[in-house]
């Protein structure tokens, strides 16, 4: 397409807007199917297992390492101002407010998002969705919606695991290895972290990210071209679009939640 040709440009903008509109309708459909989906919770439960349990390993290990690094870097800077004992609070706030939800969402997009995209894409290209339709079963209700709601449920739980393991990792580095006073580590954290403002906002963020990442993954699988190449491209698009969406939403949410 030649962007300087008004016709081509107009067509591209219109098809881009049409894609966004289609995606919005898809999301609305998934959200409206909350009732029927939870009425058949067995399907959701199975998907929670596939999406959540299989992501636990990578989330926990990543959380541990992020906690290590946060404690190291935090101690490095704080001890210049004599505030080394605040490292616990710093690690906890960084994880609960930002790193927990965001990094978990990015990892989830890479691990679970791509598998969702590939699964839906392959099912659609293998005509399994058509077969369901011809059996008088709505494929979105039966296949796509349980995966969506499972993703929304799983994300805050994974983010909580990430933050918890990260805080423990921070404890290991700062108290066990460096020698920060354990009492000060925990008491500063308890004093500095507020339940609703910090933990609550972090959970809210991870729910929003869960919606975004799972929605992008399922949509890309659903609209993928029914070829092997098409499905492969769709998984790439999932990672890219989901990651950008998470980071963009993080900015908007942080500005709304944590600014003055």
């Amino acid at each position, binding site marked *: 397409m030649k962007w300087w040709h008004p016709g081509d440009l107009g067509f591209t903008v*219109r098809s*881009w*807007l*049409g*894609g*966004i*509109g*289609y995606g*919005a*309708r*898809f999301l609305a*459909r998934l959200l409206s199917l909350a009732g029927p989906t939870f009425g058949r919770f067995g399907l959701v439960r199975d998907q929670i297992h596939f999406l959540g349990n299989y992501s636990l390993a990578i989330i926990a290990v990543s959380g541990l390492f992020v906690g290590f690094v946060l404690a190291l870097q935090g101690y490095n800077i704080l001890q210049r101002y004599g505030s080394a004992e605040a490292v616990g609070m710093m690690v906890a706030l960084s994880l609960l407010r930002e790193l927990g939800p965001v990094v978990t969402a990015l990892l989830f997009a890479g691990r679970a998002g791509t598998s969702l995209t590939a699964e839906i894409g392959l099912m659609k290209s293998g005509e399994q969705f058509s077969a369901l339709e011809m059996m008088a079963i709505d494929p*979105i209700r039966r296949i796509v919606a349980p995966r969506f709601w499972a993703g929304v449920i799983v994300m805050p739980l994974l983010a909580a695991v990430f933050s918890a393991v990260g805080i423990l990792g921070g404890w290991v580095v700062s108290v066990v290895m460096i020698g920060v006073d354990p009492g000060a580590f925990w008491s500063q954290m308890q004093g500095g972290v507020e339940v609703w403002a910090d933990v609550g906002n972090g959970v809210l963020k991870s729910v929003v990210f869960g919606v975004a990442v799972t929605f992008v993954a399922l949509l890309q699988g*659903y609209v993928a071209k029914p070829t092997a190449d098409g499905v492969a491209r769709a998984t790439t698009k999932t990672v890219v679009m989901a990651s950008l969406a998470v980071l963009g939403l993080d*900015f*908007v*949410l942080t*500005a*709304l939640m944590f*600014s*003055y």
Partner: protein
Amino acid sequence: MGRSKNDVWVGLFVMLGAVALVFLALQSANLLSLNWSSTYRLTAHFDNIGGLKPKAAVRSAGVVVGRVTQIGFDDERFQAVITLDMDSRFHFPKDSALKILTSGLLGDQYVGIEAGADDADWSAGDNVTHTQSAVVLENLISQFLFNSAADQGSDGKSATLKK
């Protein structure tokens, strides 16, 4: 789920919603400096502006009534020239004084206005003549030492800096 003829319109609606959301977030975080009120411009010369930066506040009685937009150098008078955008709602007498003050003990510097008593107000494009420069620490110390030396000279006693 099939394509609909309304997809483009839904997409447009979603984009507008997203823009509105971002705008809301930026506004609530005070990150946007959209100035909807009209302003009038003033210039002022200072011997020393200290650490004054562009976009610094212009306050009177602690309330922000304008912004510093530009900082320049007058190489004929060897003075700093600053340009202020003042909120059109507020007018100050022509003999009001501009001072460079510090917010808090270690905070940023801002321009403070001490209102004068003239009948006529500043109009757009005026140059303010009553200005007081920023306080420079070294000058303050040398002034203190000078005063101490002057006191000592008139008293005839030797001055020692008391600890």
